[in-house]
C-alpha cells in the first residue's frame, strides 16, 4: 500500500476525511473538557465531603481525645467506613502521635510535622489514586489533636472510563452521521467538479473546444463551471480565428511566393532579353563600326585618287573632265553622309552617343550654315533668306555637331523638296525665353497621313515604286534625336503642295547670356560634314613622279604606317610631291624604319588598326615611352571615325587626328604644321 500525500487524494476522500477529522477533534476536545471539568468538580466535591467528615469527626471526638478514650474515638471513626471511597481514618494527639485509627491500610504512627502549618486548620492533598485530608481538632482555641482521612479516587477513574466509552460511542455515531452527510454533500459539491474535470480532460486530450460543462448552481462551483465554459468559448473563438489567420497567411505567402517566382521568371526573361538585346546592339554597333571602317577605307582611296586626277588634269589645263570628277566627289560625300547617319543613329539608340555641349553664338553659326547652302540653292534657282528676329541673336549651349547636323539636314531637305520659290530661315525668341530656328520652304509639302512617320528612320514618303528623291530617310530621324539629346524639340507645319515649315525649339535652360569670343581650339575631328575649305595646293603639286627622284633626299621624310596597301599607294601619291615617303605594313616594320640609322623621320602618319599583335594605339604608346621618339610628331590617320576613337588616339600620344577619308589639302597642311 503506498501512502499518498493528502494533496493527491480524491476530492471525496478529502472531504470525508476532513469531516471525520473535524468530528473526531470536536468530540475529543469536548471529552477532554468534560473529563477535566468533571475531574475538578469531582475533586472539589470529594474535598468538601472529606472536609465535612473531618469536621464531624473532630467535633465528635473532642471528648474522646480530651478524656483519652481511644475506643470512643475509634467508634466515631468507624462511622466513616460506610463511605465507598473510604480507605482509612486516624486521629493523632496534639503531639502528633497516633491516638486511634480505622481502615484497611496501616497509617504512620506519627503525623508528619509539616502536615499542617501553624494557623492552618485543614489541608487537602491528592495523590495518584488517593486523597488525604488532615484537620486540626480544636477545643476552646486549643489544638488537642488531628484527624486524617484517606479517600480513594478510584471513582474518578471509573467515571473517566465511563466518559471515554460514552465519547467513543458518540464519536462512532457522529462519524457515521458525518459520513452520511458528506456523501450527500459530495453529491452536490464533487459531482459538478468531477464533471468539470472530465470535460477539461476531454478538451485537453481531444482538443475539442466545442464541448461545454453541464450547468452548475449559483455557488462557487457554478461560477467555476460558468467561467470554464466562457473560457472554452473564448479559446474556441480564438482558435478558429487563429486557424483562419494561419490559412490566410499561408495563402498570402503562397501568393507572394508565386508572385515572387513570376517576378523572378520575368526578371530572368527580361535579363535574357536585355542580354540578347545588348548582344544584338553590340553586334550591331560592332557591325556598323566595322562597316563604317570598311567603307571609309576604300572611299578614302577613291577620293584621294579623284583629287589627284583633278590636280593632274588641272596641271595640263584640261578642265573638260571636271564634271565627272566632281560627280565622283559628290557621290562619295553622299555615301559618307549616309555612313555617318547610320553610325550616329545606331549609337544614339544604343546609348553610346556622347554629347559635348559647348557655348555657341547662334546667329553667326546659323548664318554660316545658310551660306554653305547658298550655292546649292542658287543652282536650283531658289531664294535663300536668313533673318534674325527680335531677341533671336541668343547664345546657346549645344553640341556643335548635333546642331549643325540638324540645321544642315533641314536646309538640305528644304532645297531638295522645293522646285521653285524659296527658303526662309528665321531665328527668333520664344515666349518662354527659349530660342527657335525656323526653316520654311515653298516646296511640295508633306501629306498629312505621312506626318506621324516623319521622324522614323529609313522612311521617306514614297509614291508608287518611283523614288522621286534621293536620300536614305535617315536625316529627320537623326535630326530629331540629336535635338532630343538637348531637350530641344522639332515641330512641323505643312500643307501638301504649298510648302513646309520646320521649327527647332531650344528650351530656355540651354540658352546662356554670353559666349566667349571664338573658341581657340579648332576642331580637328572633322566628323562634321562641313570640312574646312581646302587650301590651294602648291602649284607644283602633281600626281606621279618616281620614288627614285634624286630630289627626294632633300625632302622631309614621312613614315606612313598603314596595313592597307591601296591606301599606302594613295598616300604615297598624295605626299611624294613634297615629302620623301616611307611605308610600313605593321608595327614591327615601323620600328625598323624608325630605327634605320640613315633616316630621320620627321612625321609619322599612323593608321590605328594594324595587322599583327600591335595596333596603332599600342605602337604609339610604346614609342612614347622611348626617349628617341618622345617628341616625334605622330598623326593618327584612321577610318575609325568615332569621337571616342579620336580621344583614344590623343590619349595614346598622337599629336593630331585625321579621320578618313582625308582630303589631300588637309593632310598636307597638318604635316606641314609639324615639319615647318
Amino acid at each position, binding site marked *: 500500500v503506498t501512502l499518498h500525500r493528502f494533496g493527491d487524494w480524491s476530492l471525496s476522500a478529502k472531504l470525508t476525511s476532513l469531516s471525520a477529522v473535524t468530528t473526531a477533534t470536536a468530540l475529543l476536545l469536548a471529552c477532554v473538557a468534560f473529563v477535566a471539568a468533571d475531574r475538578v468538580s469531582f475533586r472539589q466535591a470529594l474535598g468538601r465531603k472529606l472536609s465535612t467528615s473531618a469536621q464531624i469527626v473532630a467535633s465528635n471526638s473532642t*471528648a*474522646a481525645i*480530651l*478524656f*483519652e478514650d481511644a475506643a470512643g474515638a475509634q467508634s466515631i471513626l468507624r462511622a466513616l467506613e460506610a463511605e465507598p471511597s473510604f480507605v482509612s481514618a486516624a486521629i493523632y494527639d496534639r503531639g502528633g502521635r497516633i491516638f486511634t485509627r480505622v481502615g484497611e491500610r496501616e497509617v504512620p504512627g506519627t503525623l508528619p510535622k509539616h502536615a499542617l502549618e501553624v494557623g492552618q486548620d485543614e489541608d487537602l492533598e491528592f495523590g495518584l489514586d488517593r486523597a488525604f485530608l488532615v484537620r486540626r481538632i480544636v477545643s*476552646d*482555641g*486549643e489544638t488537642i489533636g488531628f484527624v486524617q482521612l484517606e479517600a480513594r479516587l478510584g471513582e474518578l477513574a471509573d467515571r473517566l472510563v465511563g466518559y471515554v466509552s460514552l465519547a467513543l460511542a458518540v464519536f462512532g455515531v457522529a462519524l457515521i452521521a458525518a459520513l452520511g452527510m458528506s456523501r450527500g454533500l459530495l453529491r452536490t459539491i464533487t459531482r459538478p467538479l468531477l464533471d468539470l474535470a472530465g470535460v477539461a480532460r476531454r478538451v485537453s486530450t481531444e482538443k475539442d473546444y466545442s464541448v461545454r460543462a453541464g450547468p452548475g448552481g449559483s455557488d462557487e462551483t457554478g461560477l467555476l463551471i460558468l467561467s470554464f465554459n466562457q473560457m472554452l468559448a473564448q479559446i474556441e473563438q480564438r482558435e478558429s480565428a487563429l486557424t483562419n489567420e494561419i490559412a490566410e497567411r499561408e495563402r498570402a505567402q503562397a501568393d507572394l511566393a508565386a508572385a515572387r517566382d513570376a517576378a523572378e521568371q520575368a526578371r530572368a526573361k527580361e535579363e535574357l532579353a536585355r542580354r540578347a538585346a545588348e548582344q544584338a546592339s553590340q553586334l550591331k554597333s560592332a557591325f556598323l563600326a566595322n562597316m563604317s571602317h570598311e567603307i571609309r577605307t576604300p572611299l578614302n582611296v577613291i577620293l584621294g585618287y579623284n583629287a589627284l586626277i583633278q590636280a593632274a588634269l588641272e596641271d595640263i589645263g584640261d578642265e573638260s573632265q571636271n564634271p565627272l570628277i566632281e560627280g565622283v566627289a559628290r557621290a562619295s560625300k553622299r555615301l559618307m553622309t549616309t555612313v555617318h547617319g547610320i553610325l550616329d543613329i545606331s549609337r544614339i539608340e544604343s546609348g553610346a552617343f556622347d554629347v559635348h555641349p559647348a557655348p555657341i553664338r547662334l546667329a553667326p553659326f546659323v548664318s554660316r550654315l545658310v551660306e554653305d547652302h547658298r550655292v546649292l540653292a542658287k543652282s536650283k534657282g531658289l531664294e535663300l533668306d536668313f533673318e534674325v528676329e527680335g531677341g533671336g541673336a541668343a547664345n546657346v549651349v549645344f553640341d556643335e555637331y548635333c546642331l549643325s547636323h540638324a540645321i544642315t539636314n533641314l536646309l538640305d531637305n528644304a532645297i531638295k523638296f522645293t522646285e521653285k520659290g524659296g527658303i526662309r530661315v528665321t531665328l527668333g525668341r520664344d515666349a518662354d525665353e527659349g530660342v527657335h530656328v525656323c526653316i520654311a520652304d515653298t516646296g511640295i509639302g508633306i501629306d498629312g497621313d505621312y506626318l506621324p512617320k516623319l521622324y522614323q528612320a529609313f522612311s521617306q514618303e514614297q509614291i508608287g515604286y518611283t523614288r522621286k528623291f534621293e536620300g536614305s530617310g535617315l536625316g529627320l530621324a537623326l535630326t530629331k534625336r540629336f535635338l532630343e539629346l538637348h531637350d530641344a524639340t522639332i515641330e512641323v507645319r505643312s500643307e501638301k503642295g504649298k510648302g513646309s515649315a520646320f521649327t527647332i525649339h531650344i528650351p530656355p535652360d540651354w540658352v546662356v547670356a554670353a559666349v566667349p569670343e571664338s573658341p581657340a581650339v579648332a576642331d580637328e575631328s572633322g566628323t562634321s560634314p562641313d570640312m574646312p575649305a581646302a587650301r590651294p595646293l602648291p602649284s607644283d603639286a602633281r600626281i606621279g613622279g618616281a620614288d627614285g627622284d634624286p630630289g627626294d633626299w632633300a625632302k622631309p621624310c614621312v613614315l606612313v604606317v598603314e596595313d592597307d596597301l591601296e591606301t599606302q599607294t594613295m598616300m604615297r601619291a598624295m605626299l611624294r610631291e613634297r615629302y620623301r615617303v616611307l611605308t610600313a605594313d605593321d608595327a614591327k616594320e615601323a620600328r625598323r624604319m624608325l630605327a634605320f640609322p640613315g633616316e630621320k623621320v620627321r612625321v609619322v602618319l599612323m593608321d590605328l588598326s594594324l595587322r599583327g599583335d600591335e595596333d596603332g594605339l599600342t605602337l604609339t604608346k610604346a614609342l612614347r615611352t622611348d626617349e628617341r621618339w618622345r617628341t616625334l610628331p605622330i598623326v593618327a590617320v584612321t577610318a575609325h571615325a568615332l569621337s571616342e576613337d579620336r580621344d583614344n588616339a590623343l590619349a595614346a600620344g598622337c599629336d593630331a587626328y585625321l579621320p578618313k577619308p582625308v582630303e589631300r589639302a588637309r593632310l598636307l597642311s597638318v604635316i606641314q604644321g609639324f615639319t615647318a
Partner: protein
Amino acid sequence: VAILSRSRGRRLGLATLLLALAFTKAFASDAPVVGEYQVKAAFLFNFAKFVTWPSGAFEGPESPIEICVAGRDPFGGALEDTIGERTVRGRPVAVRQIDAAEQASDCEIVFFADSERAPVLARRLERAPVLTVGETAGFAEAGGIVNFKIEENRVRFEINPDAASRAGLRVSSQLLNLATVVREERK
C-alpha cells in the same frame, strides 16, 4: 561443636534479659497510675467543656468557672499547672480550696477526694448547679454526678445523669458516651 554450644549459650542469655525487661514493665503497669492526679486534673478541667451550667450559676458572662477541691487536696498543684491561663467558652478557670460544703455554692465543679464522707457531702449540693466529682466507689450511685475510677490502669469515670439533671446541669452526650452511666438504686 564448641563454637555452636557457645553461640547457643549466648542466645539463652539474651532471651533471659528480654524476659526480665518484660516483667519489669508488667510490674510497673500494675503499680498506681503514674501521674494519676495529673490525669484527673486534666479531666476535671475538661469536664467544664462538656457540661452546661444554668445561666444563673454565674454572676456575669466573664465570671470564672471555679473548680473547688473540698477537704484534702490530692493534686499537689497539678490542677493549677494543668489549668494555667486556659479558658473554657471564654471564661477563665479558677481553683479554690474549700473546707465546708457551704462554701461550695459559688463553685461550678467540686472535687471530693476519696473518703467515706464524700457521697454525703455531695448529697448536700444535690440541688445546687454544681458538678460534683468524686473518686470514691459508689459515689455516683450515692447521688454524685461524676465519679473517677481506675480501669485497666486507666482513669475512667462514671456519670449519674439523674443527679446532673437534678442539679440543673446538661452533660454533653459525648461525655456520656465516654462514661459509664450509673443509675441511682433508690429510685
